[in-house]
């Protein structure tokens, strides 16, 4: 196994070197150098107090990205749990803290799931996304809702805003994607100008795929390929946003989003038992408004609210109960209000305050359920000081959670104070040094608390401390190597009171405890490079590396003590090389993950192989009569490498996607 790993490691280095060799070779043949201005990219990598990584929609193609996890899988510190296939669950854990510690803000407003505590990123489509930013600790720009401070890290997604040429009053973008897994994915975008200050955008996207793919069953003695069945998906997304302003001092955005889907759940590969008949339906709707108002030059207000309803139906027609079917339905409702403001007293100091309140309800058809309603109140008070080369931010978050249940005892009220302290020192024009400390927690989910019979209403919140030290470097070097940015952050995280489920008596009866304790030692390294090959051609490179030692230190007597927590690779490398000009782009992406263990005990029998996966993508911009068009072709898993992220959930082999986009 070790040998295998080193083999892969050398292969990876080889590819890396090969990549840079090709860059040089192309550069040498090019004799015409012209002055090239620094790309806009430079401004996007402005050093921030807490580490952040961003991708914009024009770069999705570089990563052959079909969904949000594809787009950010190269980010340092990110560990994606991908259950495989088009409809497969995809969750994101940042810096080994677990998916429940990552918040998602869509246009500034949180997407929440109080039942499971984690977001399935597979459900978020890319068609209407403009940027995705991962911030460790919390967002850096102000004002932000108090909720934005309430997680260990935040993924911020912004949607496409309507943009018009001077005489345009409307714009249509039609896109059609097809490819492996029987994928048919038409998407239509309509942008309409209503007046000088008002416009709207409507996105619709239909996704249909049978989702089947071949894979090798490992360990059942078979030597033929099996077919991943019951992997189909039909999903519809409708999204409409109204943008406007009543005066130059304010902006309003109203957004409505509908997501409906039906999918098969192929499940874990079970030896000698290949049939799966579980299905899942989603019907999600939300409406949110974000209103920003400036009061003079010093005060900014942010007023946000949201109503959301998520309905899930799960049917297992293999279930051997009396009805010969397990039918579980869940409806989550959320009401959310937020008011935030920041006040810039002078050039040096500013204050910010935010107050958010939400009500979350869970309804289900499960018998004897608690039917909980959670009332949450967050308040944050912070300050920013900019003095000479120093930038210091500090804030404290107060959280009060109360819950009412229809059945049984109400859990105790939870109150918490969570401080954050961040500092940035500008050592030179190119070099910044930064550090932060953040204490935060995640409350128990409804599942943790109320899962029929087995929930534990006395659970405490999972507590996280993050310590980060880092440096960033960015520079325009010369006309050729026109942009380089590097950043390295070392961190130490601790999780205490980690919520873990243990079966009790038998596998029908689980109990949930605050028993876990994890120490995480990590390093994130991020590099971006832009190299002018000629007047028109650029070579781009990004290379990221993550080291994570995430040790279970719960119980010195346990055989998992000081072992790496499950599904956490120690080493992750990602790199992306490409060449592009205004019309063409070709990109090659690689992701390497070292081996992992699927259980907390690091034994050879619980080993999950590491992998090196390559993707190739290309884009071509052209015109169909006078209409701007884009053709893109993507090949995922170029070398048809068999691998799995989650054991027993095989990932697809080589797959292709082709898509055509026309702007009318």
């Amino acid at each position: 196994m070790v040998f295998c790993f080193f083999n892969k490691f050398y292969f990876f280095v080889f590819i890396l070197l090969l990549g840079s060799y090709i860059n040089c070779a192309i550069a040498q043949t090019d004799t015409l150098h012209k002055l090239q201005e620094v790309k806009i990219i430079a401004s996007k990598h402005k050093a921030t107090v807490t580490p952040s990584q961003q991708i914009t929609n024009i770069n999705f193609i570089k990563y052959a990205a079909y969904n949000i996890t594809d787009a950010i899988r190269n980010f340092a510190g990110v560990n994606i749990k991908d259950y495989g296939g088009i409809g497969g669950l995809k969750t994101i854990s940042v810096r080994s803290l677990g998916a429940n510690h990552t918040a998602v803000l869509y246009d500034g407003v949180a997407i929440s799931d109080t039942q499971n505590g984690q977001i399935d990123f597979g459900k978020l489509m890319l068609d209407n996304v403009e940027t995705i930013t991962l911030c460790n600790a919390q967002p850096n720009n102000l004002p932000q809702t108090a909720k934005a401070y309430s997680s260990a890290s935040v993924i911020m997604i912004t949607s496409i805003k309507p943009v018009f040429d001077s005489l345009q009053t409307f714009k249509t973008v039609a896109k059609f994607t097809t490819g492996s897994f029987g994928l048919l994915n038409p998407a239509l975008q309509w942008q309409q100008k209503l007046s000088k200050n008002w416009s709207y955008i409507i996105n619709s996207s239909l996704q249909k795929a049978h989702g089947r793919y071949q894979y090798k069953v490992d360990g059942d003695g078979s030597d033929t390929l099996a077919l991943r069945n019951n992997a189909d998906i039909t999903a519809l997304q409708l999204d409409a946003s109204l943008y406007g302003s009543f005066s130059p001092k304010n902006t309003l955005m109203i957004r409505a989003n509908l997501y409906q889907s039906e999918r098969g759940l192929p499940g874990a590969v079970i030896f000698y038992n290949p049939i799966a008949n579980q299905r899942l339906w989603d019907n999600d709707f939300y409406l949110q408004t974000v209103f920003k108002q400036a009061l003079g030059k010093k005060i900014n207000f942010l007023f946000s609210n949201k109503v959301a309803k998520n309905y899930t139906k799960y049917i297992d027609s293999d279930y051997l109960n009396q009805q010969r079917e397990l039918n579980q339905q869940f409806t989550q409702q959320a009401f959310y209000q937020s008011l935030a403001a920041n006040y810039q007293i002078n050039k040096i100091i500013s204050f910010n305050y935010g107050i958010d309140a939400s009500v979350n309800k869970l309804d289900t058809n499960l018998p004897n359920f608690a039917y909980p309603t959670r009332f949450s109140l967050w308040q944050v008070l912070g300050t920013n000081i900019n003095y000479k080369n120093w930038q210091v931010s500090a804030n404290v978050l107060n959280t009060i959670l109360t819950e009412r249940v229809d059945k049984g005892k109400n859990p105790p009220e939870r109150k918490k104070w969570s401080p954050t302290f961040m500092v940035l020192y500008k050592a030179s024009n190119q070099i910044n040094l930064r550090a932060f400390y953040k204490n935060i927690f995640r409350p128990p989910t409804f599942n943790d608390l109320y899962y029929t019979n087995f929930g534990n209403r006395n659970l405490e919140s999972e507590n996280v401390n993050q310590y980060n030290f880092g440096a960033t470097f960015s520079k325009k070097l010369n006309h050729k190597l026109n942009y380089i940015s590097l950043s390295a952050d070392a961190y130490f995280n601790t999780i205490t009171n980690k919520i873990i489920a243990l079966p009790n008596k038998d596998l029908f009866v689980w109990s949930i405890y605050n028993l876990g304790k994890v120490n995480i030692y990590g390093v994130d390294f991020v590099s971006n490079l832009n190299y002018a090959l000629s007047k028109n051609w650029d070579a781009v490179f990004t290379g990221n590396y993550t080291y994570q030692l995430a040790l279970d230190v719960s119980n010195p007597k346990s055989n998992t003590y000081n072992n790496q927590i499950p599904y956490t690779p120690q080493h992750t490398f990602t790199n992306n090389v490409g060449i592009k000009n205004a019309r063409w782009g070709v990109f090659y992406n690689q992701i390497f993950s070292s081996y992992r263990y699927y259980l907390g005990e690091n034994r050879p029998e619980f080993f999950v192989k590491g992998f090196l996966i390559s993707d190739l993508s290309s884009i071509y911009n052209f015109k169909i009569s006078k209409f701007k068009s884009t053709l893109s072709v993507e090949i995922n898993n170029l070398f048809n490498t068999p691998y799995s992220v989650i054991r027993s959930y095989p990932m697809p082999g080589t797959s292709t996607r082709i898509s055509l986009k026309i702007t009318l």
Partner: protein
Amino acid sequence: MINFKKKAIKSITLLIIATSIISCRKNKNEEILPDIAPIRKGLFVLSEGIFNNNNSTLSYYDYDAKIVTSDIFKQENNRGLGDNGNDAQIYGSKMYIVVNGSSTLEILNAKTIKSIKQIDFKTNAGLKKQPRFIVFNNAKAFISSYDGTVAVLDTATLTIEKYITVGRIPEQMAIANGKLYVANSGGLDYPNYDNTVSVIDLTTLTEIKKITVTLNPNGVAADQYGDVYIKSVGNYDDVKPALTIIDSKTDAIKTTFTNFNGGKMAIAGDLAFFTTEGSPKTKDTPAITGNLKVFNVKTETVEKEKFISDDTFVTSPYGVNVDNLTGEVFVTDAKNYASRGEVFCFDKEGKKKYALTTGISPNGVIFINK
């Protein structure tokens, strides 16, 4: 006390009957192979693995070599046992392993562990039947499955002759007085569990009666006096766990012990052992070891609440087996159900003799003779 007197009078006659009946208790080697010198070669431990993880294993511990082979099934057959091996027994020269998640019955040569046949427990539509337990009688094997059936397998031809319909989600079975007792748990029908025990006549192979017991029965064992012990889980709420004793002559309920805690059950001689759970360490309380409760089937009273008499710590007792030849008591420890487990061998006094590391969630020990 009346019970005790009756029991004492009956015990002698029953003892004679009992020895002539092939019981369903797990350690039947001495009955099946009566003329072979009853010297143990070693023991097997079946580990369930984790649901949906295909990591059920069979370990073998050789008494002479004192070596554990951790996944002997895979070693001998170049394939995994599959998902959730739930029950393993040796009958004659063969070992039978019931694999619940994979819905298979693996039939092996008990000496070599080489596969003889894999029987698929699925309907024609491919629906898994989820087999759970296996018992034997008169060259026939009886396999309970979650689809509400007991399959009858001819151990000579290794084919299924018949499916007998029983109650919902049947679990353990035991044989007494020429009858098969099946616990119908209804375990997948929370909160509307089943509360019956099916009685099957072993000559006609038909269900002749359903006995109503406490809700959610899952454990069944027979003692040497012709009594059948039924352990019910209850509904985790107002109906507490119970132990019901059925007289197999009349199929009438003799006694029900309400609020009777105990997980897995094993009866050997006059003693029944029940696993009892411990509890993890919390801020306010120290960790408490899991243990065994000892019940005397002759006097029908609890003899000891705590069998373990030394400082052995059993985190999550998940199976109990007794070696009838040596009187050794084996307790399997599933730990956190997601790492390797352990099996502890105790002497009759509850002192640990040795411990072996097993696969994940070990649920039982099977003894093999030389």
